[in-house]
């Protein structure tokens, strides 16, 4: 697909002009500067850009790129880096379109960078009031605009060419306990966006917004209210602050209009006695039919009923076709912070495989006043940037964390607006603070190979069709493995902690791999060196 031709640039210029006079319909404006609905539908086969947070609607970070191979990967070099002005934990999924890379920082800055040179085209600096852990996972690019959802509950539209604000709207019901961290997902004229509030006393929802003006098209609450199925899984009024936030990415099957989401932990996080029951749909994957005016639940699968350890399924769902016992099946993968990796039947939610990827201990306990140890801790298991599937090896690659925690709960909880609603405290870290890169055979659910790291691993995974799989480490190393054998083929020290997922694309006949790095934030462990070169975007290519 050729994108950067003169006619398109001309159109983009015309679009700017028409924006200024505010008379041209949005459809004209949208061409060129941002992807169209058709582009999104065909993102899985597009190698020249990276237009959705996890490449395409399946949520699988797999690109059919062929230039960088296991044979030549040793020559891979950083061709440029861009130092972010906002130095903090950096989890952005880079979006690449038309020669521009769009990334975000923890405090909701947006940077538009020239993909070739790393030169800054524009920067939008928000710096909203933070009630939580500062994090932003990226932007949406559609309708002529860049969309960022912020830490103070705003959805902001910026002109994709200039970074100038087009509109800005508060989209959460309670700004003292709800905010946004995920990248909005453009889908059939809507922006899908889930709310983050699962440890602060809100209840989760996924909403569809109109990209034109931010008005809410529909909202689906993740905790069933009175009269709805599943409401009886909450004792008393506990559902009202039940959590089940929508923190991270989503997967969509456009053929069936099915939206897959993994919902967050119940609240108060560490005190189960005040919310007796299974606490649906916390710690569950839900499949929603979003073809109608309002979503309807197709199925749900609860990974950990009545969780008391903040072990939510942080990994964004990955939808893929894998071979199980010699038969091709449509599957959806998930993983949780308790260290479980799950493969479900995408059509029915039936459990196909479960694999344990982190050290587990004491999972049957509940935190009490004296304190007890359970593994993993709240930063353990599989974290927010998940893994990727390789159709050629039929293997799923996912990093994981082995950390244990000492949990304590005083047995009571008070809601304080704007603060954690935990019924206890986040666990004390007690080790071993290591990580693994896990290759799981989809056919059997067993390990194809595992690579052990000396530190926790949270960097996501990227598979390219030459049999390479990339991941980043807490110590700043960016790694390429042989997908088949698990052999480490290449390693590059970026200089700061990698928690972000990589993206890859072709431009001007060259394959580029891009990854963000920054401060470790709450992923800090005593074993990690305090030396840190700051938050940056690194882009790699062959010489």
């Amino acid at each position, binding site marked *: 697909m050729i994108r950067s031709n003169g006619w398109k640039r001309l159109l983009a210029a015309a679009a700017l002009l028409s924006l200024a006079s505010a008379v041209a319909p949005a459809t004209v404006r949208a061409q060129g500067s941002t992807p169209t609905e058709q582009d999104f539908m065909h993102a899985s086969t597009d190698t020249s850009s990276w237009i959705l947070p996890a490449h395409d609607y399946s949520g699988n970070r797999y690109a059919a790129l062929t230039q960088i191979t296991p044979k030549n990967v040793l020559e891979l070099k950083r061709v440029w880096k861009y130092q972010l002005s906002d130095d903090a934990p950096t989890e952005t999924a880079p979006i690449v379109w038309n020669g521009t890379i769009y990334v975000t920082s923890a405090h909701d800055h947006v940077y538009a960078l020239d993909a070739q040179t790393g030169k800054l085209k524009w920067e939008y600096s928000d710096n909203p009031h933070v009630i*939580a852990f500062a994090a932003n996972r990226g932007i949406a690019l559609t309708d002529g605009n860049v969309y960022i959802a912020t830490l103070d509950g705003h959805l902001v539209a910026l002109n994709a060419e200039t970074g100038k604000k087009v509109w800005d709207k508060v989209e959460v019901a309670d700004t*003292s306990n709800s905010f946004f961290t995920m990248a909005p997902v453009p889908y059939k004229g809507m922006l899908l966006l889930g709310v983050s509030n699962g440890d602060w006393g809100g209840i989760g929802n996924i909403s569809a917004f109109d990209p034109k003006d931010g008005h809410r098209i529909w909202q689906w609450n993740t905790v069933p209210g009175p009269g709805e199925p599943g409401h009886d899984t909450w004792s008393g009024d506990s559902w009202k602050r039940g959590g089940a936030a929508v923190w991270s990415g989503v997967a969509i099957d456009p053929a069936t209009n099915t939206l897959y989401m993994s919902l967050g932990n119940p609240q108060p996080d560490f005190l189960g006695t005040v919310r007796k029951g299974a606490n649906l749909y916390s710690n569950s994957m839900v499949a929603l039919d979003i073809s109608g005016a309002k979503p309807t639940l197709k199925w749900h699968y609860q990974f950990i009923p009545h969780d008391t350890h903040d072990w939510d399924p942080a990994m964004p769902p990955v939808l893929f076709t894998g071979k199980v016992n010699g038969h091709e099946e449509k599957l959806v993968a998930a993983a949780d912070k308790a260290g479980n990796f799950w493969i479900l039947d995408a059509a029915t939610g039936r459990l196909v495989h479960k694999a344990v990827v982190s050290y587990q201990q004491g999972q049957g306990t509940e935190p009490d006043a004296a304190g007890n140890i359970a593994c993993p801790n709240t930063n353990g298991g599989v974290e927010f940037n998940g893994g990727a599937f390789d159709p050629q090896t039929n293997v799923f690659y996912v990093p994981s964390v082995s950390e244990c925690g000492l949990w304590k709960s005083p047995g009571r909880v*008070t809601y304080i607006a704007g603060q954690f609603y935990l019924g206890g405290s986040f666990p004390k870290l007690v080790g071993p603070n290591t990580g693994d890169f896990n290759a799981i055979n989809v056919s059997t659910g067993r390990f194809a190979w595992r690579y052990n790291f000396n530190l926790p691993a949270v960097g996501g995974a990227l598979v390219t069709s030459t049999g390479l799989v990339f991941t980043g480490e807490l110590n700043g190393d960016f790694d390429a493995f042989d997908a088949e054998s698990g052999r480490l083929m290449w390693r590059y020290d970026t200089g700061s902690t990698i928690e972000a997922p990589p993206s890859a694309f072709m431009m001007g006949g060259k394959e580029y791999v891009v990854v963000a790095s920054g401060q470790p934030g*709450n992923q800090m462990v005593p074993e990690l060196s305090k030396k840190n070169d700051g938050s940056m975007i690194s882009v790699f290519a062959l010489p």
Partner: protein
Amino acid sequence: MLRTLALVAAAGLLLGGAAPAPAASGSSDHDTAAAALADVRAAITTIVSAENSTATSPVPYHRAARRAIAIVDGGAVARVNHLLDRRATEPWTATLEGANANLLGAVASLRQALRERQMEDYQLDVTTALADLEMALGRTSQTGVLGGLRGAFSTTTLGVPDGGRVVSACGPPSAVPAYGTIDGRLAYLALPLGPARVTVGPDFGVQRLAVVGHRLMLYTAAADESAALCRKVAAASDPPPAAAALYTLAQAKAGEAIFADKCVACHGVNLQGTAAPAVAGTAFLSGAKQNTWSLSDLRAIVVDNMPFSDPGSLTPKQYAEVMAFLLASNCYPAGTTPFPEHGQASFAAIAIAPPPGAHPDNAALGTCTVR
């Protein structure tokens, strides 16, 4: 309305007393304004009486229009300008400027009327002029507040007659009858309660009646605005109460060292937050205020949940020192009593909000340095 009248009657009050006399030059603002009001009323009466006649000749109509022009142009407009000319801004300036525009509009319409050949055209012009005059006189708006000359008259010191006792609207009147004013606004007329007959001018606008002590209070439409002004004046003149001293400087210094070791990784060297939220300064305090956090809430967050990777790992003495450092960084004053090692019931009543009288060392962040 009926209730209002009944109350007025009960107070033995006579509304609609003597009409103000036309003002001579050098008269008071009140008299000038009252004269302007009388002029406008006279002009309206002149036109309306001619309209009500049965004359078929244009002569009496034209005579009425000419007389009205003379009254408005030579009287009301001159008087309003007299009130407007001297000082740039009075509480009634904007209102009178509006009235003036309406008066000039009325004069223009009346002059046009004199040029018309057809009776219908004359009547159209005169109707326009009458509407303008009514506007200049003042009509009750949707919010129940008068505009125009009567509005200015009933809500500002223009309504205070010569010799009327003027008191500050910010407190109860020391004696009655008295006009309560502040900054040129007329908030109330206080009258003795009882059978005594008191005459109040026809244009004194009563919005609300109340009996306070042994006085009948006739509050004007400017009463609420006056009360707000009084609060502002009080806030400006009284120094704000200083925030209570909750910790010692030595504690804050010790807390600074603990913070640098245990907290700085997530909350940042300038306390503005890297991975975690800001814990001092404008951003933190505005959020705390919005969420109505008390000192008790803040202490619970620190003592129960921090440090994030090892909650509860500091000694009670160390937690008190960290609290002292946070309070110091948020510009709370130091004192001689140390921050206690255990929570106090009184903490629930101490709000975490920008402390009164604070002078941040870092104006941009709103934080203070421990010295």
